[in-house]
C-alpha cells in the first residue's frame, strides 16, 4: 500500500481551485480562436475576441476568468493500493476548497440549504465529491468549478427506448434552444445517455471534462456528436445569444448500458469558461 497524507490532498485541492479559476484550459482557448474564424456575425466575432482577451487578463493577473467561481466539483480516482493517512479525506478536500477560495480571492457562492434561509456558508464548502475506485497506487484529483448560470439551463429526461436516436437529438436541441442566451454561449454540451437517473447526469458532467476536439471512441456516438454540433450551430443563438453561427464549441457524449425499459438522457450545459484542472498524487 502506498500512503498519501491528507495534507497533500488539501494542498493539491487548494492549488487546483486557484489554477482552474485563473487559467482556461488550452483546448478551450484553441476552440475559441477557431470560433473567431468561423463566426459569421461581426458582433459575435467581437464578443469571442473579448472572451479570449478576458482569459488572457485572468491568466496574467491571476484573477478569476468569471466572477462565478462555481460549485467546486471534485472528481477523485482513488487507486485501490492507496492508503489515505492523517485524517478524513472528505474533510481534507473541503479544507482545500476553504483555503483555495480564501487565498485566491474567489467568490463564495454556496448557501447552506436550498430553499429555507439560504445563508452563504462563507467558504464555498461543501465541495461535491465524486469518487471512483480504480486499480493502481495513485490518486487523481480533478477540480471542475461549475457556474450556476449554465448549470441552471441543464436538463434530464427519461426517454423511452422507442424514442431512439431522433428522440435524443430532439431533446438535446430543445434543451440548448430553451437555454438560449442564459448559459453564456458559446457553450459546451455534455450529454449522458443510459444508466439510471443519477448515472446519466454524472456521465453528462464527466463528458464536459473530455478534451475538446476528441470524439467518443464509438464511431456511432462520435457521428451523433458531430451531427448535434452542426444542428446546434444552426439554431442561430450565437456568442452571448446575440445571433450567430457559433452557439456551441463541442458536443461530448458519454454512454452507459441501460435498463431494458429505459433510455435516460441528461444534457449538462457548460459555459465558455469551461474550467477544470487535474493533478496526480
Amino acid at each position, binding site marked *: 500500500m502506498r500512503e498519501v497524507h491528507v495534507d497533500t490532498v488539501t494542498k493539491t485541492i487548494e492549488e487546483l481551485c486557484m489554477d482552474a479559476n485563473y487559467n482556461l484550459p488550452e483546448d478551450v482557448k484553441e476552440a475559441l480562436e477557431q470560433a473567431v474564424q468561423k463566426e459569421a456575425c461581426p458582433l459575435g466575432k467581437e464578443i469571442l475576441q473579448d*472572451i479570449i482577451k478576458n482569459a488572457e487578463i485572468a491568466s496574467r493577473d491571476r484573477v478569476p476568468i*468569471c466572477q462565478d467561481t462555481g460549485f467546486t466539483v471534485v472528481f477523485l480516482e482513488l487507486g485501490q493500493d492507496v492508503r489515505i493517512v492523517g485524517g478524513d479525506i472528505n474533510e481534507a478536500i473541503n479544507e482545500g476548497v476553504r483555503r483555495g477560495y480564501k487565498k485566491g480571492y474567489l467568490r463564495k457562492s454556496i448557501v447552506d440549504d436550498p430553499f429555507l434561509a439560504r445563508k452563504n456558508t462563507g467558504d464555498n464548502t461543501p465541495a461535491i465529491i465524486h469518487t471512483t475506485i480504480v486499480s493502481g497506487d495513485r490518486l487523481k484529483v480533478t477540480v471542475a468549478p461549475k457556474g450556476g448560470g449554465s448549470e441552471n439551463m441543464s436538463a434530464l429526461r427519461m426517454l423511452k427506448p422507442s424514442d431512439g436516436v431522433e428522440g435524443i437529438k430532439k431533446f438535446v436541441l430543445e434543451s440548448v434552444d430553451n437555454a438560449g*442566451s442564459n448559459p453564456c454561449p458559446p457553450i459546451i454540451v455534455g450529454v449522458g445517455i443510459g444508466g439510471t437517473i443519477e448515472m446519466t447526469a454524472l456521465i453528462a458532467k464527466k463528458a464536459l471534462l473530455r478534451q475538446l476536439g476528441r470524439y467518443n471512441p464509438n464511431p456511432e456516438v462520435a457521428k451523433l456528436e458531430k451531427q448535434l454540433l452542426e444542428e446546434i450551430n444552426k439554431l442561430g443563438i450565437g456568442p452571448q445569444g446575440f445571433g450567430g453561427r457559433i452557439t456551441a464549441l463541442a458536443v461530448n457524449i458519454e454512454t452507459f448500458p441501460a435498463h431494458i425499459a429505459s433510455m435516460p438522457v441528461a444534457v449538462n450545459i457548460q459555459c465558455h469558461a469551461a474550467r477544470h484542472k487535474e493533478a496526480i498524487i
Partner: protein
Amino acid sequence: MEKTVHTPLTGETVRELKSGDRVLLNGTIYTGRDAAHKRLVEMLDKGENLPMDLKGQVIYYVGPCPAKPGAVIGSAGPTTSGRMDAYTPALLERGLKGMIGKGIRNQRVIDAIVKHGAVYLGAIGGAGALLAEAIKEAEVLAFEDLGPEAIYRLRVENFPVTVIIDSQGNDLYTVGKKQYKE
C-alpha cells in the same frame, strides 16, 4: 462604432440607444442581484425609502469576486437577468432607466421597459476579468450582510455593453437569432 453614454440616463439618451448598439458606459452604477432585489421590493412594499434614488439610474446584475489587495474589485461579470424579472417592473416604476445583465427577459419586463422608456444592456457573461478593468471605484452602499450580493456603488469608465432590449422593445436575442437561424 461604439456610443459613449453617461449616467444618470435621461429619456433622450435612452431613446437614442438601439438594439444591437455597442455602448461604453461612464459614471455611477449600482450592483444588485437576487437577494438585494428581493429586499428592495420588500422595502417598497412596506413604503420604506430605498438606499438609493433610482431616478435615471442603472443596476448591474453582478455578484463580484472579492478584491485582491490593491484592486478596486474582483472579477465582475453579469449574472442571469431572468431571475430578477419578478422584481424589475416595480423598480422601473420608481425611475430605474437601465439594467445590465445577460440572458432573456420575460414579456412583463419588456412591456415595462417600453412603458417607462428604459433600456436593457448586456455585458459579456464570463468576461469578469475584462469587465472589472472598467470599474474604477467600488464601495458597499447597502446590505453588507449579503456578501457578494450586497449593493455596491460603482464608478465605471468605458464599461462595454451591448443594447439588448431598447426603449421601443426591440430584442437583440430575437432579432439576432432570426438572422442566423438556418
